[in-house]
């Protein structure tokens, strides 16, 4: 009983103090400032959240394009490795004509031809889909690769054995030369020297 009486006394004291006309409390100025600050912070947060989302999207897009191009290069490398390889004889069978110029062999590789007919067998394009990466949803990214065959040294009459492949990527309003790489068929290492 004594404890309950004390609690009642304390509660009454608090109520009395709140009711005290001299306590200023959460005033108008405080409210305005708080609301303004909160609004500013919310605006700031929303703005930077959208900025971050955009940044994350760009980052994912670049990573996915890199991976897509890397996958494509690996496929081409694999095909170039097996070009002219005879599985029965277990060796490379490469004739003189092939050694002089590998262009025809390369544009005939299964991995060279993509689903989009770009009108030139030296330029192939494709639009990766969501199955490759969520960021490709809608197939809005166009990847193009362009082949140029050349000798390892410019202006020299050597074998046309270097396949320089340049990748371009288009999305939104962007059209970027992404990267280039020189590849060569393994079979070239088995070409017989003309003596």
């Amino acid at each position: 009983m004594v404890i309950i009486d004390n609690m009642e006394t304390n509660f009454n004291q608090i109520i009395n103090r709140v009711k005290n006309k001299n306590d200023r409390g959460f005033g108008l100025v405080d409210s305005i400032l708080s609301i303004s600050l909160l609004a500013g912070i919310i605006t700031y947060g929303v703005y930077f959240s959208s900025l971050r989302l955009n940044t994350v999207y760009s980052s994912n897009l670049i990573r996915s394009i890199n991976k897509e191009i890397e996958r494509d290069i690996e496929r081409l490398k694999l095909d170039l490795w097996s070009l002219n390889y005879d599985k029965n004889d277990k060796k490379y069978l490469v004739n003189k004509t092939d050694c002089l110029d590998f262009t025809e062999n390369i544009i005939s590789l299964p991995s060279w031809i993509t689903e989009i007919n770009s009108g030139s067998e030296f330029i192939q394009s494709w639009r990766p889909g969501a199955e490759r990466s969520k960021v490709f949803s809608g197939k809005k990214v166009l990847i193009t690769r362009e082949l140029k065959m050349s000798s390892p040294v410019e202006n020299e009459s050597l074998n046309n054995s270097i396949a320089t492949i340049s990748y371009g990527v288009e999305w939104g309003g962007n059209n970027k030369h992404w990267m280039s790489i020189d590849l060569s068929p393994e079979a070239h290492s088995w070409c017989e020297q003309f003596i």
Partner: protein
Amino acid sequence: MIPFLKLKGIEKNNGFAIPQILILGIGIAVSVTGLVASSILGLTGSRINRQELLAKSSAYSGISRLRTLFNDNSRGRLFNYFWLVNNCSEEANDCESTNISNPATEYWSDNSWCDGEENCNGRQKAPFCSSDTNYSWLSEQEIVSNLYRESNILGNVMADSEKGFNQYFKIISSKYIGTEEYGINSILLEGFVRPINSSIKSASNKLRVNIQVNGVTSESGFGFIGVGENNSDKLESLYLGNLNVNPNNNSKGSIIWRINIENNDNCGNFVELAKANRALLPSEGNGGLWVQPLALPKQPRLKNVKDIGTLICTSENYSKENTNCKLDSGDSSEKTFRIYSLFAKGPGSKFEVSTENNKKIILEIMGDIDISNEGKFCHRDGLNPCGSGKPQNLTILFKQKSESKENKLVCNKDSDFGGVKINNNFSYSITSPFNNDLLPGHTFLIDNTGESSNEKFGAFVYGPKITLLSTRPRSSWFQISNEEQIANNSGLIVISRGVYGYIANVSGDSIEDKITNLILTSDQKLIPYGSDRDLNNIEIIGVGEKINSLPTNSQFDSSINKVFLLFDKATSNYHLRGFDSLNINRFNNSNLQNAYPASFAILRPKNNLNDINLGNTLSDNSYSNILLSAFNIKVKARENYFDRNFSGAAWVKNLCFDNIGVKNWEFSKNFVDELVSWHGNEFNWGVKYYRGKSIILWDTLRDFGNN
């Protein structure tokens, strides 16, 4: 009592104060800024990923470029030899400036090639002279050095696209570790990226790549003829003459002349130097004459060798039952015979060997072979006629014991008649014991290959120390020593070690009968077969022993019992000349086996007492016939000059042909395939081209400090 509800001094609290709100605001701002920073960092990470990809691609491209350049197979280009040397750029630890080695001035270390010679570097790694005058080592070096000296930009411009970066690669160094057959080239390079309009690298990928390098001999490069033993054999080791390589239109194969070339003076002049102006060699791109000291494979290992001694295959010896002048492998798939020396000389003389695809024969020859004066080397395929034997089924190995450095045999290029001569043909001072290393090397003389054009001499001849000789004597006569067994004279003139010698008795079985004896001039010099110079301008035709007294008007020394029949090439006269014998080696089996001469037969000086001039013919000259009969010498006119047809391969020290008659050599791929199948892949010997094939190490981010 409830303590937490007790608020002390509550009358002075001012509610939700401004400082608290500010602190909260700052906290939130910091958090949001952190999120922004992390977003930006995320973007930066993906940008770096892309540049890493670009740098990796650049490095890969550098390897592709270097590999395809060195593997280029264009005729006349020399890039494949750069696999064998070390190159470096100024960024390598080993070099202060870009240094691209010239493979033609780099050498394989080889003691047997240098053979004790001072200032001998070894064997050149590449031919000094290019087979195509459009290309030179200097031009090829310059092209290679561009890869090492400069940063090489990659890629093409794509239409309507924006390029943010340029890709480059630079090769730092490449080192070869290995042999002439196989090795590894370790390449160090860097791929890197620079933003457009900037000279600062924004990404880099450093690589150590090891590529396996293999030497391969092509069909065109196989050496059907290989000439030259060591560095001291220079331009006098080859005389091709009017050799026709068959098949005429599309033969493929090479003639390897194993010499180091030190300057450009002789480049483009080798056909003339080999006296091959009249030769028909494989067409351009199919092989031909190749000058480079390629390493010869070691001779095949022999087992179960049957020793059959010296063979003197006269017609009578050939006809004997169980003669060793007819060999076959019996029921064995392969049989090896050791022969000390082999002579089939004179009409009816024949050595016969029968082989088949599954019955191969190896002849190990310790000394010389002399097939001449209508004697025949009959290689038959089973029971088929002579000359039908397949070269891939017969191997002739020469195993010379003596080291002939002082008195070297070389080809005689002084005339169209060919033959050999001796470089330092010095006068022998006879000492005891005699130093057999002062003698020239052994020879294989074959002046005919059969009567019809279908008859060929086909074999694989492996004799890096011997001379293969095919030339005809100038004399129109030769001695018959085997048709009739003449009681007191069964001697036979033979060519041993490229010089004239004789055998005392072709019918005898003793060592004394069979062992060779060499003939010296009166000033104690050897008489090379075919030499046209100095006092050695003679041929020895026959050997005789006096059985009747000489005509009374003869001034010839009556005490002389043994004579040689000579032909003087300067006057075309025949002479009888007395000689004296001087033993230099013991008559024992060891000396017989190693074909060491038992004695020197020294011609007496040319004067009326020692020499009788028989005139310029031996046919209807009664005077000469009387004298020849007195010395029991029977001669025969040389009637037929048959074509000489060869097939197979010969790897020898000297190959000395002539420029007269008809000589053919068949280059056959089937022979090469079968030879390799029999003796192993190292016998696919010839011009090698090098290819960097499998990549056996791909190590990234290696510190350049260890290059």
